[in-house]
């Protein structure tokens, strides 16, 4: 039975009650504990820094050459916090409510409420670190509004909010490295979790420069390794983002929750060719000033696809601002899942505008006329420049062409209120856990969650576990380390010895195709069953027909990729299985069989108000359910009309 360990008391008091009754490690004893943190993005860097400040001994592993490269750096739009600086009716409760509703009532109330409670402190912390947020003329912090919310609660630093927040956490981390409290290992790829006596006791990692397999031991292990969007091959994730750490944890006994919940972001630059290595996001903040449209007639769409006319030449009467038409109260600011599906609907119906037919316009003409080019440039200058560099079109003059792409994964390792997985002593924070976002994450909430976990929640909750586990001597000489290491060596030898014909990237692309078409923006039972079959075939082929080069004991990116693709293949199958199980539509999970008459997602609260948590077993994944109860909000059909 899954116990989320939610504290007693009213929702508003749970976190305070918890803080009062939590077991603490005395300051003098903290240095006796060794904590391994894997990943150096917002969650990992903020956790490692905060744990170091508290006096714990921290080991930080990252496969990047510097902690500052982690993919949090690429987050653009902003970070939410319930400051109510705009006097527009925001509150902790409203942020909590919007997040629960935005997640289509598939998140845990207690966690989300806590997230909203600590959100304000994150902004305080970041400002104190010198994060250069946008400001008003009086020197106060500026805000903007974001999808799924009717208040302006998003703090931002142009279109580089993730970068600036990460550099803030990285600074705090650097300070702890300098003080000797955090020991940093760059270019180290975590390959396995070591579990001994039923507890997480360390990790196995590969030094990416020398190929050496190394053992690291700790009293607790924290995975801050991000999401698994790259299972689709093409996504807005960074190229190296992967699922290996969380997937290995799953194989070692940590439950994997809601794997089917993935977020397709509505505003990305469409694919241009087969060589495409990744997709680029255009921040959701653009929907504040940009209007989404396609032509009203298929004939006009056809001409636009063939470049016979320019979008600027299409008159107002000929344009269909379909989000404003379908959702008059939220308009262009509907949540991401709604906006993405609406774009797909128009393109599938033949109104798409990119040469491939898969594209819609995001038009700034009216905002530029209203606010002036300077204002728009100040708000989105770097995004406009990025768009122009990629497409060679100038968005000040011509609307952007955008299409949805995989962006974020709400699923991840199942965690309880302490952020601990089902393996004692193993924690998952940030995007790596199944998180507070339910079936759909609101814009500007990922940065908030990663930093809430890392700065304010984990540093407290981990003490509750450590205080009951003595800071005994650590050793990597245990048989469990020996076994984990030799298994890893065997895997590597096996991958290098296959000498087939397809490269890891080729397998990855094929997996991505299957996932995008059958486990993507809309899903149905037939497609999902087909996907499972296809993935199994691909996995079997991977065993025999993989082509790799080079040796184990050297810098070998082909080997790195092969190991990641192996895990993506297994995870892809679980995602399809989870999507098949969930016979309802909720948030980013849209099952074609379950929709309302006007094409909106139809939830089934009677049967599916639960988190699906999968346990690995040699016979196949075993389903566990965490039933969600709602004390404060009553689940209703989401409406943004």
């Amino acid at each position, binding site marked *: 039975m899954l116990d989320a360990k939610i504290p007693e008391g009213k929702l508003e008091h749970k976190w305070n009650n918890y803080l009062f009754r939590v077991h603490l490690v005395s300051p003098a004893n903290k240095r006796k504990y060794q904590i391994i943190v894997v990943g150096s993005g917002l969650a990992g860097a*903020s956790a490692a*820094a905060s744990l170091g*400040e508290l006096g714990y001994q921290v080991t930080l592993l990252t496969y*990047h*050459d*510097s*902690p*500052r*490269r982690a*993919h949090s*750096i*690429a987050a653009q739009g902003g970070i939410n916090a319930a*400051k109510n*600086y705009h006097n527009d009716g925001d509150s902790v409760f409203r942020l909590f409510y919007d997040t629960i509703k935005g997640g289509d009532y598939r998140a845990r109330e207690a966690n989300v409420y806590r997230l909203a409670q600590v959100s304000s*402190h994150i*902004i*305080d*912390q970041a*400002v*104190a*670190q*010198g994060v*250069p*947020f*946008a*400001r008003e003329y009086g*020197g*106060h*912090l500026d805000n903007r509004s974001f999808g799924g919310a009717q208040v302006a609660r998003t703090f931002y630093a142009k279109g580089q909010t993730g*970068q*600036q927040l990460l550099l803030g956490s*990285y*600074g*705090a981390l*650097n*300070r702890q490295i*300098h003080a000797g409290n955090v020991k*940093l290992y760059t270019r180290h790829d975590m390959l396995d979790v070591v579990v001994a006596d039923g507890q997480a006791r360390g990790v196995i990692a590969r030094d990416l*420069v020398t190929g050496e397999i190394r053992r690291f031991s700790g009293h607790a292990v924290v995975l801050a390794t991000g999401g698994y969007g790259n299972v689709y091959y093409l996504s807005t994730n*960074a*190229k190296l983002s992967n699922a290996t750490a969380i997937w290995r944890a799953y194989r070692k006994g940590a439950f994997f929750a809601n794997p089917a919940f993935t977020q397709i972001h509505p505003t990305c630059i469409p694919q241009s*060719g087969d*060589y*495409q*290595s*990744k997709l*680029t996001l255009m921040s959701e903040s653009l929907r504040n000033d940009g209007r989404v449209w396609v032509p009203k007639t298929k004939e006009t769409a056809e001409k636009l696809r063939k470049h016979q006319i320019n979008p600027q030449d299409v008159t107002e009467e000929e344009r269909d601002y379909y989000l404003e038409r379908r959702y008059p109260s939220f308009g262009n600011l509907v949540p991401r899942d709604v906006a993405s599906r609406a774009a797909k609907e128009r393109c599938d119906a033949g109104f798409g505008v990119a040469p491939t037919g898969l594209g819609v316009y995001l038009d700034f003409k009216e905002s530029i006329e209203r606010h002036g080019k300077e204002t728009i440039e100040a708000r989105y200058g770097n995004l406009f*420049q*990025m768009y122009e*560099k*990629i497409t*060679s079109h100038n968005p000040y003059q011509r609307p952007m062409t955008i299409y949805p792409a995989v962006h974020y994964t709400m699923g991840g390792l199942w965690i309880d209120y302490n952020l601990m997985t089902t393996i004692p002593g193993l924690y998952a924070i940030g995007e790596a856990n199944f998180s507070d976002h339910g079936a759909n994450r609101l814009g500007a909430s990922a940065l908030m969650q990663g930093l809430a976990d890392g700065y*304010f929640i984990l*540093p407290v909750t981990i003490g509750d576990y450590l205080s009951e586990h003595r800071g005994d001597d650590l050793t990597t000489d245990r048989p469990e380390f020996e076994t984990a290491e030799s298994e890893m060596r065997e895997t590597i030898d096996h991958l290098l010895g296959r000498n087939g*014909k397809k490269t890891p990237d080729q397998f990855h692309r094929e997996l991505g195709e299957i996932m995008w078409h059958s486990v993507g923006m809309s899903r149905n039972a037939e497609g999902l069953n087909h996907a499972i079959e296809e993935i199994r075939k691909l996995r079997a082929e991977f065993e025999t027909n993989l*082509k790799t*080069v*080079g040796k184990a004991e050297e*810098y070998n*990116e082909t080997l790195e990729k092969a190991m990641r693709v192996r895990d993506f293949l297994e995870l892809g199958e679980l995602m399809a299985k989870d999507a098949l199980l969930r016979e309802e539509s909720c948030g980013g999970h849209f099952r074609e069989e379950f929709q309302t008459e006007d094409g909106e997602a139809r939830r089934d609260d009677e049967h599916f108000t639960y988190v699906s948590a999968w346990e690995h077993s040699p016979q196949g994944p075993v389903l566990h359910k965490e039933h969600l109860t709602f004390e404060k909000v009553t689940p209703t059909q989401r409406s943004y009309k």
Partner: protein
Amino acid sequence: MKITLKIWRQKNNSSKGRFVEYSVDNVNGHMSFLEMLDVLNENLIHKGEDPVAFTHDCREGICGSCGIVINGRPHGPDTAVATCQLHMRNFKDGDVILVEPWRARAFPVIKDLAVDRSAFDRILQAGGYVSVDTGSAPEANAILVPKEKAEEAFLAAACIGCGACVAACKNASAMLFVSAKISHLALLPQGDPERRERALKMVKAMDEEGFGPCTNTGACEAECPKEISVAHIARLNREYLMATFT
């Protein structure tokens, strides 16, 4: 397009490197430079050869991982882009392109085009931050920052730590990188209490890493993908002088 590449191949830090010629067919102008290298690498793997090592990750010009000297210019011929944002439309059919790693004593080559830039991390570890523990921050709007100052600080903080400034400099100086962080924090009230100590510590760390001196050629600014201004170097010099006199 058909492109010929002369790429620096070096097995590891202790071996000698050399240029090796490769050709890539069917190059499309919409491809990024790195996507073109992906195509080359796939071809090499199929032939059982060692693919070209280069660092990369976000491929949207913000993580700072990538960095290749292309025809003698860090990040190539386009302005205000990282290598990952350089598109092949900047080249033409039949071009021969020289492809090299960052070359600087403080950035040893790891393999081929991948170099070790951990010296940058160590400089920042020496003092490139505001010393504030988690939890001890005041209410965010208690610290007012004039809009212009915040924007100026932001422009300095936009540095992605790629190292193009070092690669562009004939002295392999890290002054633009260091000054960007000094400027970012010196411009803000939050950074004020530690500004002197910070300047001293970071400059000392920079010198210890083996970066060369600045001789004001401005090559760093010209190649910086984020167009960080050399004016920050002037501010760093002022900060450093002020710190040494007191």
